[in-house]
């Protein structure tokens, strides 16, 4: 056990993980039921009792999708953590340039990355921006207190953000669950710990910070002893 711990770095708190997976569950529920309306073949499912359940599940999913980040924002200390998705610098553009090659065959000049690499930032950015649009437009569509034209515009926003989020969702899931080089990072969101070698290789700047802190602690401990 102890030997294994040594080669891991702590990456996420339990609260972070709970929020991530709750949002994921909400999104998946709403996505699956949402596309039932979207495609002609499946929309016939929406009549009668089956339709009742689908509609209810879509709304439950939507509410989970909204509530999880709100509760996280209220109770977690890292409530403004999402702002780092909006901080971009030169290394991010370097990453974007090198990414296609890197993710297909490996190598490439990947600039050292922070705790979240550019791809993750981009996904976070998408999730925040289009998630908010999705939720706001969904609210308008749920409660028909507004004019038909407003409804139509909201439907447009709801559709477009849902499609974009879905595409990004697939890329996100693929990278962490299937991509041969990246899939070890899946463990980070399930256990909270990340493989040291992977952290060093993929999030060098962040890893160095963690390392510095660890060494500080070690020295403090030594002084105490």
């Amino acid at each position, binding site marked *: 056990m102890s030997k294994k711990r040594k080669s891991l770095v702590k990456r996420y708190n339990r609260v972070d993980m709970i929020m991530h997976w709750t949002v994921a569950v909400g999104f998946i529920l709403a996505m699956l039921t949402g596309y039932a309306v*979207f495609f*002609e073949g499946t929309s016939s499912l929406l009549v009668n009792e089956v339709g*009742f359940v689908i509609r209810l599940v879509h*709304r439950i999913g939507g509410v989970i999708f909204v509530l999880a980040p709100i509760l996280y924002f209220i109770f977690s200390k890292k409530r403004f953590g999402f702002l780092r998705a909006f901080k971009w610098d030169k290394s991010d553009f370097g990453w974007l340039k090198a990414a296609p090659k890197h993710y297909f065959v*490996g190598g490439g000049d990947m600039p050292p990355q922070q705790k979240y690499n550019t791809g993750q930032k981009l996904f976070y950015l998408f999730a925040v921006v289009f998630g908010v649009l999705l939720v706001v437009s969904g609210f308008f569509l749920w409660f028909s207190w507004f004019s038909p034209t407003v409804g*139509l515009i909201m439907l447009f926003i709801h*559709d477009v953000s849902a499609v974009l989020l*879905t595409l990004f969702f697939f890329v996100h899931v*693929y990278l962490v669950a299937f991509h041969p080089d990246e899939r070890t990072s899946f463990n980070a969101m399930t256990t909270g710990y990340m493989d040291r070698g992977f952290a060093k290789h993929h999030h060098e700047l962040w890893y160095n910070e963690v390392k510095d802190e660890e060494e500080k602690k070690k020295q403090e401990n030594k002084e105490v002893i």
Partner: protein
Amino acid sequence: MAKTNDKAILVDISLCIGCKACQIACKEWHDLPATEFEKVSGTYQNPADRSENTPMLMRFLEKYDETTDTMDWLIWKDQCMHCTDAPCVEVCPSGALFTHEDGFVGLENDKCIGCTYCSKVCPFDSPRFETDALTGNKRMNKCDFCQDRVTNGELPACVQTCPTNALEFDTWDGAVEKAHERVEQIKDRYPEANVYGDKEMGGTHYIYVLTEKPETFGLPAQPETNDLVGFRQDVLKPATQLFMGATAVGLLTNFIISSSAFGNEETQEDQPKDGGEKDE
């Protein structure tokens, strides 16, 4: 434009006496429940508005002319107009709304999923809903042109019952021709008389002979629908399928290529590790 074998209902406002027989006949035939009495002050209209249980309503507008000290009734029949270029049919995701072979907009209520897109695009605000508060589940209802009667060679219920021939069931071309003739006949009494529905929305399947301008009745002079109407069907759905396909292909390609590429790297990385953990 409307096809030559299309059927239409001609509504001559100047002949209507406001007996509401058509309103009742419509409810009767569609087996719709009575609604609570609503007092609409100053008119004979009841209820105040159309609903899922009152898809067709006689609207009463009382016009008082002070110069001549006379009162005029404007009564018109308000229901789905059955457009030829019907935006509701275009957006309906489940095929509950369709263009009937006789040209009007049919309704298959069993297929309605209550998405309310049709109400968002209708320039006449026709579709009405029965709403479930918890799930937002909705059921749409509107005039269905008595499709069951018409396909079996019967007259629509409202036409059958009209005592003054203010309603006439005819071919679309015939109705438009008659409408223009009527307008010529009543021009002396109603200088503003006009035909409504022959050009609007590609030709509606209710052709009106109006005694005043359409705006007076609350009908849009130039009915139009939002440009976003076709977006979902024409742009977004194909684009989504394309993007989803492209993403799937891209990810699969990536998986195949990267599997081999990163597979080699791993074995190379493993060798020095096996040699000893001097790095760490």
